[in-house]
């Protein structure tokens, strides 16, 4: 049993971070660091092998998370964390690949890759920090910005409908879909721990405040006010149908674990398709017939 003094002297989370990168770049009241705390506790709880854990991210505030975790980290291009991670995961199936990035990166610019990675069921855990805005570039509207919100590129209020991310990844075939807010630190940790133990394409959305660029412009107060807002508006509904969990301004935020199912992952499907020939071929490659492909020539 640790004494209070020992706990104060050493935060076990620090063992999982690159402490030479701390303090982080995030603003006071930002929710990203809170999700990192939950993530590290999930790593501790699951006994995750840090040597095989690979953090991949795109561009944006949340894209910096991987750089604070004490493991291999790939900070890729904007929107393309998932295909990079797909390459890592397929070329070395022993790697435990986690994509940690933001809503703008994963769902807006990278939306197509999100759909197809879920469809293929590549072994990836994707954590999407949804602050509903492009924060790094100064608060522009994203595909996740709620209608009527003020942002720097919607000076008269947003009017595009926003996207319901859990419904999208559920429809595309994710094996695990959950949503929590930065208020739900323990539930988030539990979901992250569950998802770390699963195979296939797993997805967790975390709703977080951006006090600097979203809450402030929309008169929503500071980070603490956001916590109270999430506490008041959230309703835990595990197993909720994902088409019913769209977030509407001022209304309930449905959180919980929505999807937890088994589907064969990409490599399992590939090996099943190739069958017994697979090993045989590696040992004694057959000669390939020399056929030329036919194309329509239009594309």
């Amino acid at each position, binding site marked *: 049993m640790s004494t209070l003094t020992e706990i104060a002297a050493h935060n076990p989370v620090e063992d999982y971070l690159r402490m030479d990168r701390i303090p982080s770049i995030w603003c006071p009241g930002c929710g990203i660091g809170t999700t990192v705390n939950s993530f590290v506790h999930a790593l501790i709880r699951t006994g995750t092998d840090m040597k095989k854990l690979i953090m991949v991210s795109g561009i944006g505030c949340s894209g910096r998370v991987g750089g604070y975790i004490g493991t291999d980290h*790939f900070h890729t291009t904007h929107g393309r964390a998932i295909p990079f991670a797909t390459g890592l995961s397929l070329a070395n199936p022993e790697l435990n690949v986690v994509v940690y990035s933001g809503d703008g990166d994963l769902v807006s610019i990278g939306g197509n890759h999100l759909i197809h990675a879920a469809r293929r069921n590549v072994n990836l855990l994707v954590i999407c920090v949804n602050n509903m805005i492009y924060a790094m570039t100064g608060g522009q509207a994203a595909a996740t910005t709620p209608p009527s919100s003020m942002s720097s590129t919607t000076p008269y209020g947003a009017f595009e409908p926003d996207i319901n991310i859990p419904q999208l990844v559920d429809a595309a075939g994710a094996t695990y879909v959950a949503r929590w807010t930065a208020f739900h630190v323990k539930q988030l940790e539990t979901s992250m721990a569950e998802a770390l133990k699963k195979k296939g394409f797993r997805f967790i959305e975390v709703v977080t405040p951006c006090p600097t660029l979203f809450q402030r412009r929309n008169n929503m107060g500071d980070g603490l006010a956001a916590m109270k807002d999430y506490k008041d508006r959230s309703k835990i509904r595990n197993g909720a149908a994902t088409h019913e969990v769209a977030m509407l301004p001022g209304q309930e935020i449905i959180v919980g674990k929505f999807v937890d199912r088994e589907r064969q992952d990409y490599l399992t499907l590939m090996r099943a398709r190739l069958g017994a020939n697979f090993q045989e071929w590696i040992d004694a490659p057959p000669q390939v017939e020399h056929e030329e492909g036919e194309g329509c020539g239009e594309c």
Partner: protein
Amino acid sequence: MATIADSLHTGREMQHADPRAVLTGTHFMNGDAAACEGALAAGARFGAGYPITPSTEIVERFAARAPQVGGLFIQMEDELAASITLQGMVWAGQKAFTSTSGPGFSLMMEHIGYAAMTETPCVFFNVQRGGPSTGLPTLPAQGDMMQARFGSHGDYSLIALVPNSPQECFWLAVKAFNLAEQFRVPVMVMMDECVGHMTEKVVIPKAEEIEIFPRRSPSKKPGEFLAYGEIGEDLVPEMASAGEGYKIYVTGMTHDKRGYPLGNADAQRTLITRLFEKISRAEDELTLIDEDHMDDADVAVVSYGITSRVAERAIQLARAKGLKVGRMRLKGVWPFPEKRFREVAQRIKAFVAPELNMGQVVLEVERCAGGHCRTIAMPHPGGTVHRPLDILAAIEKGARA
């Protein structure tokens, strides 16, 4: 045909190709197929791509061959994805490539820059067709030569090779992977529709005759190793792979020796200068020109890819007329073999530079000529090849200069 060992001399022990992936024998295959076999012989077991004419046969063949040698091909949702998925495969410790043509090549530009910045050894095959935009999907051009060098934003350096036959597609594919590993750069293999689709004899040697440049794996233990800090005289850092315990930090941002983002002018100068110098210092080694009759030439015909084969006819006709014509066939275009061109310019009357574009590589030729001799451009918008008689007329014009 020179072997790939010709220019590799870094003191690292070369390895031999894995015989299980080498299709030793005499074949009748097209350039796309030969490029695929070259990639396999070089050790590529992973590939990511997106279908596009006239490059598709490369990945069609790889999709069939890769599972037989313990690899895989994944068809991605677009070229943006393919061009970064392959880099994930590389950082997982594998050799990987993609192939494409004009429109797809345009989409891949950002990730060519990412590969240059993160020093990810990888290979891009571009089987060029007529452009811009959708252009001429089934017909040849060489209009992406400048894009290959400068297409991604910012300043970087890379290597581009240009085969002119299926046999050379095989060898330059092998060389591309070796140079990618040696210099830790993306290497472009700039084919064209004719070279990709022409079918000729291709001799694939035994695996022990194919030399392979191995990954520059770390010489230090985790904890002592810096992701971008273990740099030798050739300015190329050692490379750790994901999952080995090195806790590497890889970013497309300007970074320090640890790989950590560092946003200031000093860091930029240190990094970008090294990315250029690791290539420029190796100019002699990277000067890949097939020369003939250059000793007493008055005119040098500079060409590459399919155009070099048309130009060869013009050179024969000119020699039959008694003209002193030499051949400078580029097998490597980037880095441009500047030193050699400056030397030649001192003692010839003219360069004649036919290419299937409105004038791209000729700009480099003219720059290196520096006014010491004439440079005769032979622009062509593509869709077919030059007429040998037109090149002959240019040679005659050059000889009169």
